[in-house]
């Protein structure tokens, strides 16, 4: 069983975390920190399997990780999972992200976090591997996208966005924003 999936960058900032076992928030953060600490120490030419931590309660687990440019993809698994299989799964996941996002980069993970979660849900469900075939996963994701669009229809999307903005009651935006010399007049949003 997969206990957790962590994606963080070279500075330890988490980009996606998914725990399949309950941990309190501070525990979660500690796990992220410790995992980063362990993984960042690794040389580039050692194996991708890490053992011997005391993190996720108990000793029956190992960390299987891959380092892609600025991101670390870490899967924390127990002994029932095949190491090579999980290594391959990480590769499949990343390739799927690449297909869904067109040359995926760290920014995509930041700004489209929900989409990344959806993709991950198609791959791993409740800590168990659901699908390993990239084409299948991509097909499901596209099906999902179509569903979403058909909810309001393509033409309805801008309208929904506008109505959302219209109904927003944000605190008073200052009419004039003064940045030194430049005087910008903010147009008033009249309902239309």
């Amino acid at each position, binding site marked *: 069983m997969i206990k957790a999936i962590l994606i963080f960058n070279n500075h330890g900032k988490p980009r996606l975390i998914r725990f399949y076992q309950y941990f309190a928030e501070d525990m979660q953060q500690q796990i992220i920190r410790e995992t980063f600490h362990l993984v960042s120490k690794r040389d580039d*030419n050692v*194996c991708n399997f890490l053992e011997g931590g005391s993190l996720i309660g108990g000793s029956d687990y190992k960390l299987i990780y891959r380092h892609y440019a600025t991101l670390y993809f870490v899967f924390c698994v127990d002994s029932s999972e095949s*190491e090579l299989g999980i290594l391959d799964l990480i590769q499949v996941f990343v390739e799927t992200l690449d297909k869904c996002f067109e040359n995926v980069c760290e920014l995509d993970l930041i700004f489209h976090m*929900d989409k990344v979660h959806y993709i991950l849900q198609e791959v791993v469900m409740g800590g*168990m591997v659901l699908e390993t075939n990239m084409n299948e996963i991509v097909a499901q994701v596209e099906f999902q996208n179509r569903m979403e669009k058909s909810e309001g229809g393509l033409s309805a999307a801008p309208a929904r966005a506008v109505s959302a903005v219209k109904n*927003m009651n944000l605190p008073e935006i200052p009419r004039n924003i003064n940045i030194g010399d430049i005087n910008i007049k903010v147009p008033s949003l009249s309902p239309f």
Partner: protein
Amino acid sequence: MVLISTLSRYAKYISTCIDEIKQELKQDNIAVKANAVCKLTYLQMLGYDVSWAAFNIVEVMSSSKFTYKYDTGVALTGLSCFVTPDLARDLANDIMTLMSHTKPYIRKKAVLIMYKVFLKYPESLRPAFPRLKEKLEDPDPVLISLSSGMPNHSASIQKLRILIEDSDQNCEPSVNACMKYLGLLAMSKILKTHPKSVQSHKDLILQCLDDKDESIRLRALDLLYGMVSKKNLMEIVKKLMLHVDKAEGTTYRDELLTKIIDICSQSNYQYITNFEWYISILVELTRLEGTRHGHLIASQMLDVSIRVKAIRGFAVAQMATLLDNAHLLTGNTQRNGICEVLYAAAWICGEFSEHLEDPMQTLEAMLRPKVATLPGHIQAVYVQNAAKLFATVLRSQEGAQDSQTAQETTQLLIERLPLFVQSANLEVQERASCILQLVKYVQKLQQKQVEVAEEVTALFAGELNPVAPKAQKKVPVPEGLDLDAWINEPPSESESEDEKPRAVFTEEEPRHARPRHAEVDEKELARVYQETPGVEHIPVVQIDLSVPLKVPGMPMSDQYLKLEEERRQKERAEKKKKEKKKKREKRGRGKKADSGPESEEDITPAHMSGLGTCTQVSIPSQNQSRRCSTAPQHPRFVPWHTLGPHLGPL
């Protein structure tokens, strides 16, 4: 300055964002809310507490954003994460129906979730099993599959060896490392079922021990367990000790420590030929800082000292030195830290105080004020064993007709004990007060010029020995005692039948005539002493040890290695000389000749422990008698004598 301002600006920005989100959540529009929840998820990932928004999150979840057809999939996904036993029980039937859903996607998810359901609610397995069976096609191919059903493992082991050894020049180094790791992992799986087939690859494993990749080293460590033998134990442990010195991280170091002790103590210390060497290894391990396994080292020291009588003198000397230098260890007072070793040291010095060279010195070391900084349980042992030492000291001082120093000793105790009487730990307090009273009484008697040493010693008379697990069986049942008889009136038949509840899954225990035998663990140790009462079959061995115990400038354990090699060479030379004569004699007596080709068996251990190694190692008796006559008797070591009839190994 810049950093502080950045941080404060950062915190300010986050708090503005959170305010914004709170505003958004108050809106009616579900899309806005969903967006806000998304932001909250991001923040939660970064570590900020978002529990205040719990209701809003549930609210957004309840919106029907996706069509109903997709809902099942989402529902199943969610369920897999938070399934509880109750949920599992209630929904099991529904999920089973879903396994026959038209959409394969749903079917797949349903099957997978059944696994989770089974984990939480095992009873659901029975009804679901046939349907599950037909759904499950071939299991995922295991990439390196080594089923124990395979009769011949040498072929796969060969392949594994190649996997571990060869590094393909074209491949990335990390891929090679991965292959190495997996090869070692597979080997350790084989090791569990077929230890012999892995043994021939000892050299490769030892090589892997030196790898710079920690994961590979850990795998190799794991394999070592099955690869030690009497011959190579010392050099393997020496290698591991070198690693211990080099290892920075505490986890790896702790792992090494546990491994060293595991290897040495496995199979009832089967592979140790020289217990002095083992004690010196344990003492060297106490130099480790920040370990979490102090209790392990302590228990080993205790175990060896108790069971190997011959070693007690040496052990006591080492422990006395430890106690003297306790200031090095008192710095680390965490639970299970290295200070646990002092527990063992104090106990050993107290219990076997007759071997101490300078009991007065040790007594004084035990009662230093700094001892009060140690954990309570250790202090308690110190106090108790100080009393034992007091008895020994008194005996020697009164024996020397030196009543003056005897009284001084008593005075020392009276001065030092009150500190412990004031301890916050109850156990320490109690023991200290009892002993203080005793000592005060002794003082009164001493002032009247009464000889008290004998009586004080009598307080601690009798040896504490380990008890075999089957010892209880050996206790004879007194006459007229029927252990199976009821103590009170058995309940009447009719009553019990009415009241018996129908337990569905638990078996009904028979109410009458319960069998009395307790299930005792079949430990390998007790096997030896199982059926043999009495101790005549255990041979007596004279210890041959002419080595000085401290070689300056050299780690103590190294010299044993050298000595061992010299000893074996001597043995081999002797054997070759007497071979012809012995062959004839041996054949005549019908004894086991040369115990097989394995030179393992011919290695005579340096000490005999009370553990029945005699039955596992065949000792050519001719050699023994020869040894006895030529070797000088070391004054410190008493010949190992037999244990009592009821006592056996732990």
